[in-house]
């Protein structure tokens, strides 16, 4: 069976404001925000993209929806290549990929009622044979909101309710792939649970593939099948989520997992603390890009870039001196 989404060596490059120095090649004229990312998603699966702000997670999502300039690489959707040219908005596959933005209230028009916002996708894509107004009400009940919300405006909703409307809008045209950018950022634990349970239910009912972008590791542990850890626009470790959680190999992943603040006021032991700041994308370190903050750095990391290596359980990581494999240590 063909994969729902197959991304190969995707690059996103933004142009920097030019000046005389950049014309003479003394200043970088481009910045690579996503730098050679490959991933695939199967139907009904959830892949989580984890990484700090500025690591390129959102840009990756935008590129998959045709909202960011793709500089290289290929994206196959349902086995067909997605065209990245300007007219690609007309591509029927676009309907099948939907994006949920980070800020739920900001992504709804303040001048449209919820009913209008939910009917809009049907009007834009000229979906025949469906009454947009009826569909709006159907979608509201699908995400567990009562019909009285139909005539409200976005500012009259709470954060959790606005997220639900965001989910309803994203699944309106019955997409195959839902890209959720920080769907629970800024939500309280209880409402976060509600939104994630809703996504899980819709995934089960509609066979959605979900790409979940987040920096909340506690969420990833519970809902993701696959995960990828992003650092400076590259995946440094990717594979089965449970495997990575149980034995991370890349030092960044290990630090990320150990830094996860725990509820236990006593749990501070065994934490790997990183020092230093994230380097700028304009000045990528030579060699391994994590070496400036890596606790395991050695001379070789400065010279060459580590090619992906595969762990015994099949997940991949880019590191010369990875964390010891706990599988082997147990044997």
């Amino acid at each position, binding site marked *: 069976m063909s994969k729902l989404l197959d991304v190969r060596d995707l690059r996103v490059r933004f142009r920097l404001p030019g000046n005389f120095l950049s014309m003479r090649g003394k200043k970088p004229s481009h910045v690579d925000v996503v730098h050679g990312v490959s991933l695939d998603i199967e139907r009904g699966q959830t892949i989580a993209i984890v*990484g*700090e*702000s*500025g690591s390129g997670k959102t840009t990756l999502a935008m590129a998959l929806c045709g909202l960011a300039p793709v500089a290289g690489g290929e994206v196959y959707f349902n086995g067909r290549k997605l065209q990245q040219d300007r007219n690609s908005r007309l591509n029927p596959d676009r309907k099948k990929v939907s994006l949920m933005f980070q800020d739920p209230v900001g992504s709804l028009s303040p001048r449209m009622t919820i009913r209008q916002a939910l009917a809009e996708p049907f009007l834009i894509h000229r979906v025949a044979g469906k009454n947009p107004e009826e569909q709006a009400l159907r979608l509201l009940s699908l995400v567990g909101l009562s019909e009285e919300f139909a005539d409200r405006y976005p500012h009259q909703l*709470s*954060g959790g309710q606005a997220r639900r409307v965001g989910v309803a809008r994203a699944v309106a045209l019955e997409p195959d792939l839902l890209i959720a950018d920080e769907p629970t*950022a*800024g*939500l*309280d*634990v*209880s*409402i*976060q*649970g*509600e939104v*994630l*349970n809703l996504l*899980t239910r819709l995934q089960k009912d509609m066979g959605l593939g979900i790409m979940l972008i987040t*920096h909340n*590791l*506690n*969420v990833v*542990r*519970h*809902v993701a099948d696959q995960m990828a850890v992003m650092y400076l626009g590259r995946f440094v470790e990717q594979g089965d989520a*449970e495997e990575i959680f149980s034995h991370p190999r890349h030092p960044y992943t290990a*630090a*990320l997992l150990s*830094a*996860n*603040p*725990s*509820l*236990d*006021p006593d749990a*501070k032991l065994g*934490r790997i*603390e*990183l*020092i*230093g*700041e*994230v380097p*700028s994308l304009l000045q990528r370190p030579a060699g391994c890009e994590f070496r400036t903050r890596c606790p395991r750095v050695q001379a070789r990391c400065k010279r060459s870039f580590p090619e992906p290596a595969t762990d015994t359980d099949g997940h991949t990581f880019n590191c010369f001196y990875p964390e010891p494999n706990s599988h082997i240590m147990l044997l």
Partner: protein
Amino acid sequence: MNTPLLQIRDLSVSYRTGLGQLQALRHVSFAVPAGKIIGIVGESGCGKSTLISSIMRLFAPNAWVDNGSIVFRDKDLLGLSPDDMRYLRGNEISMVFQDPMTSLNPVLNIGRQMAGVQHRSSSSRADKRARSLMMLERVGIPDPASQLKRYPHQLSGGMRQRVAIAMALMTEPSLLIADEPTTALDATLEVQIIHRLQELQRDIGCSILFVSHHLGVIAELCDEVIVMYAGEVCESGPTRDVFFQPRHPYTQKLLECDPARIQQRTRQLPVIEGSLPNLVDLPQGCIFRQRCKHGIARCATERPLLAGDRHRTACHLSGTGS
């Protein structure tokens, strides 16, 4: 040490809305002792922001104080003249906001902004610059001299938040209010910032009022924690006591819901059933009654008061154990 730095007594704040009077805070009382870090946890809409704006006296135009006092070093902030209050802000009480990108001025470089914060000081420009450099160094910014020339958009998220913290602590205030300062950062930076805050707090000897809904961060950083629900304090006490032996049903539920606490991997995450009560038309009795499993008849008629010595709970059932 005996008189707390900040003492809030029976504070009630309302908003005038089209639907009627919205009672955002009701009978909130707590103290911030000098040199302690106090965490405030609660869902959005529980009144955290109203509480902060009350302490800073930066009310929305439609807000008014129904009742209560906010005593900061034997002065009631609610009774101060606007000029006196202005003097306190920044000098004695300062604040770090959630999003450093919007709290820093995008068109001024860091150096200008950091000098601007010191506008009350009569020292020379060079001294102000030296002080800015020292402060940046203290919050762990590498090569501070070159950072002074940079603009907020040229810094990473973690750096921006450090700059915001440096600016807030520049005047060595006695109270720092931090409103979700780590929400926008990833876990590794979050830990770095928290530890830096802890160090600075020890050096300067200030108190911190740390508002967050990230329970893990609160557990790690704070000496005491205050749990708020729908505009009321429902539980408060030493962090360890509250997190290990939560007494209020809401706190218990909140802790159960945190995915970090659930060891077994699950697709179906627990939630608190029901929704927040309508603050315009308040229900009788306990505010959490409609979502509480343990309710007894008394909960429907009588509002529970915060009771207890150090670990205090507003619940009729506390003490009977659950």
